[in-house]
Every structure is written in C-alpha cells, then in structure tokens.
C-alpha cells in the first residue's frame, strides 16, 4: 500500500539494537528469547510447540542481554524463523524461511516459522520505519536482512563446531543442516546451538552469489510451511481464541458513517442468558457476553437511537452525479507534458472520450474482523491479526493509559486481509482497547464483527470516476488527458507526509500519472473530494481503478487507430523495457499472434506495473446471458529475482481470481449513506465454477526482488474489458460489469 521509497538498509539493524532500551531488552528476554550472541539472531534450545496463539513463548531466560531475534534453533534441530510480516495468505512465513535457510544451508524439512512479537526496534519494516506489512514489501525489504541472519547463524554454528572439534573453521562445511569436517566428524544445528551463542557475530557476513542458490528461485524444493496446519483445522486465527472467562463482544454500530449514539435501552439485552454487560463505547454500544450467540442475540434486543446529524447521508447515485459534474473540468494538475489543450484544439484526427466509474468495494476477507485483549490495569496481552503492530500497540497503550512496553501484542495468522487489517486510523486496535477499558481490567475481551458488520463497516476501496480524452492522428496517440474524481485515503492520517504532494494523495492517482506509453501531450489531474465514508487501501490500492482506466482506454485508442493491442503497446513502450518484457512474454505464452479461437470467443490484453512488479495478462472469454465467462488467463510477471516461484504463481492465480470477482460482481452501493450489501448473497464473490484456467510465466530477472501480493490484481479487469470489445460489444466503463448481481 505504500510504495517502497528506498531500498532496504541493512545497516539499520545495529542502530536498532543501539536504540533499544533496557525495558525492551528485559521484556523481550523474558518473553521470547533465550541466550543470544548479538544482533542478528538468538540461538537457543527452545522446542517449537506448534502455532497456537499463546503457546509459542519459549521459557524465560535468565540472561538479560539485548537480543535481536529472527531465529530460534531448537535442540531438535528445528530452525524457527520469526517473521516480522503478518502471514495472511501471501506467504511471508515461507518466504522469510527460504531466505534464512538458503544462507544457513539448512534442510528445508527443519524450517519452521512464527510471527515475531511487536518490537519496532527489532522488527520494523525497513520500507516504513515501523513494524507493519503492506505495499507488497515483505520480500523486497527482507531479502538482504534475512539472508544476513542466516549467514551469521551459519558462521556462529561453524565457529562453535570448530572450537568443539578443535579444527579450523575453514575446513568445515555445512550442507542440508549437517555440519561436517573432513576428518569425518559431523553434527547437527541443535548440538551446537547453545555454544554458538558464545561465537562472535559477523556484522557483514559474506552472502552467496546467486549462482550458488539451491532454494531461492528453485522449483519444487520449498513447500509452504503453513499448508498442513491449514488443511487439518489446527491453524489458529483470532476468531479461534477461546480463553477461560473470556467475553465475546459485539458492537451495535451506527447504520450511517459518522452517526453517534443518541440514547440506548439495554433492558431487553440484559435479560438474555449469557449477556454479561452493555456499555457505550466511542464507536457504538458494546454487548459483552459468554459466547458469540448470546452476544448476537443481545445485540438484536438492543434499542439504540442514533444521532445522524453529522453523518454522511449521500447515496452513491448522488455521489456519481456530483463526481460527473466535477469531471467536466480539470482538477488540480498532477502531471502535465507537452501542450495538450493546444493539440486537441488543432483539429484533425479523432477524439475519443470515455468515462469510467468504479464502485466502493469491501475487502471481505474470509475471517471477519476481530481482536483479543486482556489486561489487569497495568499489563496488557493482546493477540490479533495486526498488520500494523507498532501503531496498534501505541494506540492500545494510549487508550488504556499504560506504558507501551507493558503492551504485549503479537500478531497471529489472519484469515485474509487484502489491506483491511492495516488501517491508517488504527481503528481496530482503538476499538479493542476502548471495549476493554469500558468494562475495566479483568476478563479477556474478544471483539467480533459479524459478516454484515464487516461488509457495512466502511474502509472501502474509494469510489472513483476517470474522465478520459484521447486524440488519435495518423495511427498515433498524440494527446491524452485523465481527470480523476475520488477520495483521499491518506489525508489526515500519519501517512500524509509520506504519500501526499501539494495536497494530492498519490494513492489516488498512482498509475494514472505515469503511464508506460510515449504520449507527447499528456495531462493527469485530480479532484480530491471530501466524503464521510471511511476509505482504505484495497489490494493494489490506486491501481485497482487507474490500471483499469489506463489499460481499457489505451486499448480503445489503439483500436481506433487500427493497431494490434500488443504491437501497438510495444511500439509506445520505448522507455519501459520491463513492461515490454512481460507483454512480450504473455503474448508468446498465449500464442497471441496465431491462436485460432473458437466461435464466440475473444481475447484481450493488459499490462500494469504496481509496487515495482510488472504483470501482463491475456484473457480468453465468451459472453453468456449471465455475463462474461472467462475461460483462460495467461499471465507473465516480472518481480525481479524470484524467491519462491510457486508462491509467485499462487499469488498471480489468487490475484486474478480476486480481481475478476470484483470487476464482474462486486459493489457496495449506499442508499442515503447506508451501505446496502451486507453479506455474500448481495456482495457476490467469485466461485469455483467462475474461476478460469490460469497459466503463469515468471520472467527471469536480476533486478532486486519486489512483491507479488497485490500486482496480480490490476490487469485482469481491463484485459476482460478489452476482450469484450473484441467481441463487438461495448467496452464496460462502469463497474461492476454485471450490476445487481446476487447469488
């Protein structure tokens, strides 16, 4: 969600250690650390006990030293990598472990992964400066850091073995988790883990040359570390926390955004067996109960009068009308080149205009939002799928009035997120702490959102209109304008300074201002409007709409010029070799030039860069009475050095399915400010019978690795639109393509 502004800085690590306070060190050593050598790793004898929300803390260590732990080696030879990025399906557990295992020369079967605790000094995302996951940055910012962790640990293990065997370290080799000396002596990591702690840490261990990689980029050698637990029901998510005495909390929330509680009557609620208490909280009225069902019944019985005087009352029909009016004149200039107005005024050629309309979208991850916290008035234990632990921890401390170091927050597995579990407002953590504060110290509270709460709870992909104008003359695109009307995600948030220039939010226009095509006369401008609907980054952020607008429109212009969509794009990509690379790759993979299509079928193409990753897709579809039927998608991706090819493919497959479901069916219409869709019956999700066959090729690259969680999403929509146009039908300009779709 936030573009990687700078390359990862490996030297940050020692500085982070230097900044650690005694409290940090004590807390960490008490909570999760064994003996440690120095920065880079902790080696110990802790036996991993599976992936339970509370069970993973190792025993207390008597050694009070500053630890920096990414790595725990067990006496059973397991190597547990503590992952600073949340595992929400995109694969960082496996990715981080791959990087460590590569340099450690571990055997893949001994690798494990778990989430790191919250500690920004140790576990910050080097792209953000705080602990958090987003912007498809996990592999990008950890590529060197985690390899160094592995290489340091390897050197320390080798050093320990050399001392034990009384041989020179240079004569020792490590292969698949076995440490060997030419004399025939051999041992495993677990035997040397404790002694390795006495070995000096190499600040800058030598890393492998890519020609020596045996895991990174290799097919079939690395399997996901979380597949088994996710296939037998043992994986633990926030929803599964069920601590003794815990109260489940549902909150009655205002039906309109910005509404507040005027008054409420809880008498019927309190009569329901299992309901323990009812409290007003900043976001509504909280019902505390023994279990979900009692909480839900209690909430249904609650009588709340809402004060809507400050609430957003516009519906989406009114918003669209206002957006359309604004789009008739240019907004604030984001980027301008050449003399665009003069070029249009010159006459000659053909002017093409198009208006694209994008609805509000919910993330609707399979696990509805939730969170858990228990406190005794001083110390706080909190567990949930926190995508931004550092700000979440800070807001919990602030609301509860405790010291930040007394907040033990640990991220656990999230049943999806697509951006939703990271908020610029930290409202989930704020709500959790508010609910805990309202009832006071004592029982643990688990706040649960029903599916309807989750879907009607806002933080949507912003509503957006793109008004585009293009001029084609002599088979060339000579002028292009794009007037965007949408809402800022970042305005008023702590990320404002990072992402806003001249008062304009780059997450609104990203992808529209820097198109990959050579067009001499160009303008991108923006009307940034204020709406009382909370909005958020949604898997690939601005590219969800800018990718569609740009790629559907360029196709329309090329069509008007009578040029092939692939050839035409390539001819305009003189400064964009990586865009051209994936486009050529997908054309070859799909046999674009020579494919013979069955009657009624057509193909479309699109290419979008997001988060430094380049993705091109070709779709083949036909039209049915129910809407477009996508039969197959070919996909080429260039994400720099490919670390885990199978996870890259999985993310492309998932990104395509996620994108396709939304462009076909998804919409959160507002009626007088109230979100209408509340569940999957009205917010239709892609199902298996609608999933196309998918073929992915990964373009070989020596560029720095970049992310794959989001970039698979943007191209699918315009590729579908462009294929529909090839059938002689109108290119869809208002999403979703199948309006009013319900199951």
């Amino acid at each position, binding site marked *: 969600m936030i573009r990687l502004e700078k390359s990862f800085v490996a030297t940050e690590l020692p500085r982070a250690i230097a900044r650690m306070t005694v409290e940090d060190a004590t807390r960490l050593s008490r909570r999760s650390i064994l003996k440690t050598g120095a920065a880079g790793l902790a080696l110990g004898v802790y036996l991993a006990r599976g992936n339970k929300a509370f069970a993973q803390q190792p025993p207390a260590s008597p050694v009070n030293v500053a630890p920096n732990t990414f790595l725990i080696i067990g006496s059973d030879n397991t190597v547990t990598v503590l992952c600073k990025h949340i595992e929400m*399906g995109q694969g960082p557990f496996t990715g981080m472990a791959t990087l460590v295992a590569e340099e450690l020369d571990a055997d893949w079967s001994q690798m494990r992964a778990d989430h790191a605790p919250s500690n920004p000094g140790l576990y910050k995302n080097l792209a953000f400066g705080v602990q958090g996951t987003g912007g498809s940055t996990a592999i990008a910012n950890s590529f060197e850091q985690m390899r160094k962790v592995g290489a340091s640990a390897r050197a320390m293990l080798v050093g320990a073995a050399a001392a034990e065997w009384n041989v020179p370290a240079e004569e020792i080799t490590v292969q698949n988790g076995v440490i060997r000396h030419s004399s025939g002596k051999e041992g495993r990591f677990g035997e040397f883990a404790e002694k390795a702690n006495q070995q000096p840490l190499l600040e800058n261990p030598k890393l492998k040359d890519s020609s020596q990689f045996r895991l990174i980029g290799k097919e079939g050698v690395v399997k996901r570390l979380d597949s*088994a637990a996710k296939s037998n*029901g043992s994986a*633990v998510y926030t929803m599964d926390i*069920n601590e003794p005495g815990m109260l489940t909390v549902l909150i009655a929330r205002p039906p309109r955004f910005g509404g507040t509680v005027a008054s409420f009557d809880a008498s019927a609620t309190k009569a329901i067996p299992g309901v323990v208490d009812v409290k007003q909280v900043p976001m509504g009225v909280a019902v505390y109960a023994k279990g979900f*069902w009692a909480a839900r019944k209690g909430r249904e019985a609650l009588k709340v009068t809402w004060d809507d005087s400050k609430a957003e009352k516009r519906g989406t029909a009114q918003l669209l009308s206002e957006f359309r009016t604004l789009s008739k004149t240019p907004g604030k200039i984001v980027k301008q080149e050449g003399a665009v107005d003069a070029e249009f005024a010159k006459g000659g050629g053909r002017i093409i205009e198009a208006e694209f309309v994008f609805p509000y979208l919910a993330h609707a991850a399979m696990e*509805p939002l939730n969170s858990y916290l228990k406190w005794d008035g001083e110390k706080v234990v909190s567990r949930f799928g926190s995508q931004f632990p550092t700000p979440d921890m800070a807001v919990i401390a602030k609301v509860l009035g405790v010291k930040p170091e007394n907040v033990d927050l640990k991220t656990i597995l999230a049943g999806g997120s697509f951006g939703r579990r990271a908020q610029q407002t930290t409202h989930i953590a704020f709500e959790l702490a508010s609910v805990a504060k309202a009832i006071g110290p004592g029982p643990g509270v688990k706040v649960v959102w029903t599916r309807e709460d989750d879907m009607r709870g806002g933080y949507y992909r912003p509503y957006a209109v793109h008004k585009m104008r293009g001029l084609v003359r002599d088979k060339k695109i000579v002028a292009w304008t794009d007037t965007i009307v949408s809402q800022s995600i970042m305005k008023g948030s702590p990320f404002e300074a990072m992402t806003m220039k001249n008062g304009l939010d780059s997450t609104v226009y990203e992808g529209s201002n820097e198109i990959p095509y050579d067009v001499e006369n160009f303008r991108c401008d923006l009307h940034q409007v204020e709406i009382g609907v909370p909005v958020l980054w949604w898997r690939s952020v601005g590219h969800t709409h800018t990718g569609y607008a740009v790629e559907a429109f360029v196709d329309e212009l090329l069509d008007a010029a009578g040029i092939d969509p692939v050839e035409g794009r390539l001819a305009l990509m003189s400064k964009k070799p990586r865009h051209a690379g994936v486009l050529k790759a997908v054309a070859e993979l799909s046999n674009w030039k020579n494919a013979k299509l069955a009657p009624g079928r057509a193909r479309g193409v699109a290419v979008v860069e997001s988060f430094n990753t380049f993705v091109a897709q070709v779709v083949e579809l036909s039209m049915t009475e129910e809407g477009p039927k996508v039969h197959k998608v070919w996909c080429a991706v260039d994400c720099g050095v490919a670390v885990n090819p199978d996870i890259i493919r*999985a993310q492309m497959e998932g990104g395509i399915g996620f994108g396709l479901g939304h462009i076909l069916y998804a919409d959160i219409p507002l009626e007088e400010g109230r979100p209408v869709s509340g569940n999957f019956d009205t917010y239709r999700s892609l199902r298996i019978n609608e*999933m196309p066959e998918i073929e992915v090729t990964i373009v070989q690259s020596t560029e720095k690795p970049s992310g794959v969680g989001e970039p698979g999403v943007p191209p699918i929509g315009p590729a579908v639109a462009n294929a529909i146009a090839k059938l002689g039908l109108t290119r869809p300009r208002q999403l979703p393509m199948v309006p009013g779709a319900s199951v």
Partner: protein
Amino acid sequence: MTQLTLKINGQSHSIDADPDMPLLWAIRESVGLTGTKYGCGVAQCGACTVFVAGQPVRSCSMPVSAVGADEITTIEGLKSKEALAVQKAWVKLDVPQCGYCQSGQIMSATSLLELNAKPTDRDIDLAMNGNICRCATYVRIRAAIHDAAKSLEG
C-alpha cells in the same frame, strides 16, 4: 437453555445451550473444536461445513437442537481414506493461502470423493460452488481434488 448431547467425532459432549443456537457455535465454543469456521452466518460461504449423519451441512444455519442423535464429523475428526487423500493433496499442491476457508473446502471435497470416485470438472463445480475462497485458490482446489481422486485409484 437446554441440556443437549452432541456426538462429535466419535465422542459425546453434554452442553447447555439455547436450542436455537446454530450448531457452529456449539462446535466452536461449547466443545472447543475451532477448525470449523464462521464466515458468513447465512449458509453462503461454506466455511462452517461439517458432516451430520455423513451429509455435508452448513453448521452456521442449523439449530443445535435439530441435530438430535446424529453423528457429527468436523475437520478434526476426518478419517476416511477419501478425506486423508484430500488433505494430502492439499498439502502436496500447497492449496491454502490464508487458509480460513479450507476446512470447509476440504469437507466438501471429501464428501464429493466419497460419492464420486472420479469427478469431472463439472462435478467439482457443482459440489464445490457453495464454498467461497476469497484468496481464490480455486485453481489448486480443483487440481488437488483430481490429484486425490487419482491417488485413490491405485
């Protein structure tokens, strides 16, 4: 509140519950088996799928009092050769991403293979389209069902 006895995965559990409470919450909260998930509460997503008397049902929409003496099987209690083949194929092909829907997917896939040893793509569509995966792991779900079917042939 009513006293009920549920037979889950071969064990009897006595619980005290509102008879209208969906079976899902009895399984998850009264008994503590959390592999069965809450996703929508209205039988739209399939994350809560369990077997009641061998038939796949959406436990979020079945009142606990309607189960009677029927045997309930959850993801934790899967034992059939079809189920084990499905779970093995899920791991082999790295099907899960976030994983939250996969218990329900595996229950539905197991039920399919128990009834139909060699399902076609069309059979898979019909048996599995009640299970939503928001990560859209459908390509691999399909491949894993075929893989499990193949492994059972031999």
